[in-house]
């Protein structure tokens, strides 16, 4: 079976790209990667380590316009005879995969959290992570968009060939006026470690404690909805049912009560640590480790403990 994996290589290769190629390899032996832009060939060739047979790159196409990428991937799918197309479920995939589904009349499974089961169905989160659904595709070609941090990348192959590819992507109808990318921040959906805080922190001036812990750990920061609503933190940090859904390895929540709508976006986390003054806070029911205490004391203490641990060579 032939598999096509779309990778965004505009800002170098991320772990989510390795996950997507590893996933592709589990679907079929023949894995072609399609990408665009000017990432250097040596970097792209490393996707072979994760199972890619070859990488096709359209050097004429820059940027991430959904209409153009849809044409590019459709051209590559036809050229490679792919019956499965894999994306990493990021912002680009959310715009491109649905378009591609219509263009190829191929069923789309978005937010897959596992490889297909024996019956061919694929599990996805539904009800904002409160349950899982097994989805079946009825069309000959299927598209799967894999939620980041759902599988481990497996590097046991060797570098592969990289070929130039003309994707006939056409023009973009969208003009980019300006771009704001905060430097050095870890994108929340991809982060393996997340430190999050809620209304219990009392005010934006107290977020230094949260940022200190995050930087000691190498973690991204997040917050509860009211905190973003009152403007203490930017909207893109809001996690939960009406914010970003995340599934990091570690989620540390300080001063967050653990309302059902908040839990919906974070209960896919592998390990949850809750810090709250109220021993009855509902979040403790969803936690692996709990600390009943004042975040204003516990967070700095935890930061010191992490620094000590990191400086001992971990």
């Amino acid at each position, binding site marked *: 079976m032939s598999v096509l994996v779309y990778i*965004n290589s505009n800002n170098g290769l991320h772990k989510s790209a390795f996950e997507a190629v590893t996933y592709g390899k589990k679907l079929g032996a023949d894995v072609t990667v399609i990408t665009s832009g000017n990432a250097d060939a040596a970097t792209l060739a490393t996707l072979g380590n994760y199972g890619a047979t070859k990488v096709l790159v359209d050097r004429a196409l820059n940027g991430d316009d*959904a*209409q153009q990428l849809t044409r590019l991937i459709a051209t590559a799918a036809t050229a490679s005879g792919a019956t499965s197309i894999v994306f990493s479920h990021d*912002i*680009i995939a*959310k*715009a491109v*995969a*649905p*378009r591609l*589904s*219509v263009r190829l*009349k*191929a*069923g*789309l*499974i*978005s*937010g897959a959290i596992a490889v297909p089961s024996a*019956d061919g*169905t694929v599990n996805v989160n*539904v*009800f904002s992570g*409160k349950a*899982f*659904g097994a989805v*079946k595709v*009825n*069309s000959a070609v299927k598209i799967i968009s894999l939620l980041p941090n759902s599988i481990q990348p497996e590097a046991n192959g060797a570098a592969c060939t990289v070929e130039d590819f003309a994707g006939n992507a056409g023009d973009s*109808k*969208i*003009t*980019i*006026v300006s771009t*704001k*990318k*905060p430097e050095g921040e870890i*994108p929340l959906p991809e982060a393996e470690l997340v430190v999050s805080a809620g209304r219990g922190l009392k005010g934006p001036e107290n977020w230094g404690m949260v940022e200190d812990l995050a930087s000691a750990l190498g973690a991204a920061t997040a917050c509860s909805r009211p905190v973003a609503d009152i403007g203490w933190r930017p*909207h*893109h940090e809001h996690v939960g*049912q*009406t914010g970003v859904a995340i599934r990091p*390895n570690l989620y540390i929540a300080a001063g967050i009560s653990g309302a059902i709508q908040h839990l*919906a976006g974070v*209960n896919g986390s*592998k*390990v949850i640590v*809750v810090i709250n003054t109220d021993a009855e806070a509902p979040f403790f029911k*969803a936690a692996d*480790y*709990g*600390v*009943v205490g*004042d975040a204003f004391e*516990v967070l700095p*203490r*935890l930061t010191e*403990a992490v620094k*000590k*641990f990191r400086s001992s060579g971990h």
Partner: protein
Amino acid sequence: MRIFVLNLRTIENNENMKILVCISKSPDTTSKIAFTDNNTKFDENGVQYIVNPYDEWYALVRALEIKETLGGNVTIVSVGSAADEAIIRKALAIGADDAVRIDAEPTDAYYTAVQIAEYAKSNGFDLVMTGKETINYNGSQVAGMIAESLDLPFVSLATKLDVSGNTLTLEREIVGGLEVVQVALPAVVSCAKGMAEQRIPNMRGIMAARTKPLQVVAPVAVDTLTSYVSYTMPNAKSACKMIDPTNMDELVELLHNEAKVI
């Protein structure tokens, strides 16, 4: 509310701007999630349906703000059964002018999107707006599928939208940041947080909604490309291990040696 930079001519041009806002129902966020029929169906017993928050809070309210500033018309479209008219009336109470219900079970995103696209095609809209995803299936699929069906540009996850003449200026989320983009109408936009503030319908709106036009149209023939075969619930968490708040070294040790996450 943002202020538009306009001259008279563009106001005239926009007077007949037609906006289509797609809404979906979703279970109230506090609903107990359970399944029936051997875990193949969502258990609707006791579930209260609401307008999907992204559709209502962001897409609909921003569409109304545009109409209030520039003139024009806001139409609601939803694919669903007669039971879903309650959420359509809610959208009318918030301020939409009229509504269309495509009389079919929205079996998957493709089916739903093609129904809406066919309706939009035969009725001519300048702007199609949706929420960024539903909070029940979280697919983020319908808007992109409508755009491709109509061969229109699609700006996803927009957090701001302004109209000037024939041009939309939008801020949207991109991987690791934000981008300001421009696109000419007609276009499809999916709306995320930041776009607008939630509006609570008032009594006058609720009364007016009862008599606003709600047209029911028959679906077109469309295939379903995906289906949900069964559902499972996550495993219950084992009991939470409590750590002494003065002993954070112990927590770090457990995260390293026991949980193996750092």
